[in-house]
């Protein structure tokens, strides 16, 4: 499947990019994160992050579809 990934804040720094397209066999958000974290050296455990799919918050076990846009979100610090 092909996914579009968005990176923000510390994950953007760690990945060295704010977005990328990946081909992956991962079928849910958690499997995809595990794969991507290994590739980019992300040290955050998924419990510390939230995940969004196609612009909405989602569960980690959310099944993914080809072409989905996925963002792994560090703890927010607005305000």
């Amino acid at each position, binding site marked *: 499947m092909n996914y579009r990934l968005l990176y*923000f*804040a*510390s994950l953007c720094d760690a990945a060295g990019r704010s977005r990328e397209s990946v081909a992956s066999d991962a079928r849910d958000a958690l499997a995809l994160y595990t794969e991507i974290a290994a590739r980019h050296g992300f040290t955050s455990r998924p419990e510390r992050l939230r995940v969004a799919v196609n*612009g*909405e*918050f989602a569960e980690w076990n959310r099944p993914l579809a080809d072409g989905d846009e996925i*963002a792994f979100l560090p*703890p927010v*610090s*607005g305000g």
Partner: protein
Amino acid sequence: MFSLSESGIDPARLRRELESPSAGAVVCFEGRVRDHNDGRAVRGLSYEAYADLALAEGQRIVEEAARRFAVQRIACVHRVGDLALGEMAVWVGVSAGHRAEAFDACRYVIDEVKARVPIWKREHYVDGASGWLHP
């Protein structure tokens, strides 16, 4: 109404949008860039947002507050991009018939925005370092 702004926030203009003849109380909150945080001298900061989701989640928070509290109007604006010391980072304004609801709704919005809206702060320190804040 929740929005993001790439330029300076104008509280007087936002304040006018809260006007209502039956509003007896208006409460406004401003969050500003302080000159220090956790003991480090700060020279400025940057906010990055996941804009689509930030707008959707911010609007949800505003609508939650409007349902929970007897208020008339609610507005919230959050800055993105680079901010200097003293600049306004976030503004929340609420008009209501009575003050208790105006205070409670304003507090609710800023608390939830800080907890839930996908916006991240990078502080730039006087010593040249900088870092993302991930509470």
